[in-house]
């Protein structure tokens, strides 16, 4: 099983450019999440989705957008890249619904993004 696949693995953007970080899971999971990880800061939730067509803001949503048109895919969009968005981005999924808190979150290997 591929699990959670994130593309690209690395990217350098110029200030003001836009891009989409891709995330796909093949486990038929209902819940999907986007986190950013900065040194010494753990994981901060950007957006999450509990099913196709449903998305909600996390702790740090400003400057990002998401969509969830299918169960499998949960892309993260940066519209106007800023240096503060330099980070490592992780996508995760979990089966969700009942007892979701007892289920593991399955993470991708991350996208390392630098904004210059």
């Amino acid at each position, binding site marked *: 099983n591929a699990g*959670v696949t994130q593309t690209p693995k690395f990217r350098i953007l110029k200030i003001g450019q836009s891009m989409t970080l891709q995330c796909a899971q093949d486990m038929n999971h209902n*819940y999907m*999440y986007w*986190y950013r990880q900065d040194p*010494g*800061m*753990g*994981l*901060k*939730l950007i957006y*999450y989705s*509990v099913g196709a067509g449903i998305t909600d803001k*996390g702790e740090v949503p400003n400057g990002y957008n998401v969509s969830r048109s299918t169960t499998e895919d949960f892309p993260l969009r940066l519209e106007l890249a800023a240096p503060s968005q330099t980070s490592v981005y*992780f996508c*995760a999924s979990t089966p*969700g619904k009942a007892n*979701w*808190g*007892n289920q*593991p*979150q399955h*993470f*991708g*290997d*991350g996208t390392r993004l630098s904004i210059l």
Partner: protein
Amino acid sequence: TQLLEQSPQFLSIQEGENLTVYCNSSSVFSSLQWYRQEPGEGPVLLVTVVTGGEVKKLKRLTFQFGDARKDSSLHITAAQPGDTGLYLCAGVGSTGANSKLTFGKGITLSVRP
């Protein structure tokens, strides 16, 4: 906002030593998860604790959930270089209704051969 404080932030020890690290909060959690993350990879779940006072063992790793479900500890016996990594705790709010985890900032462990 529910916060999880992890301590110590950094720990460097010699192979064979024992260690205990902590995950503390003033809030009650319905469950708490521990993840380990290695460089260049995403976090991987080690354990989920659900019941206050619960103790779970994973080989040389022992996890405990506080009686009041506000804190947790991880004890490693005879640490090995393979234990090196970032250890993250994550909590599910007491209602469990908001579908998201709260992560601590993590503990960076280095085990020297």
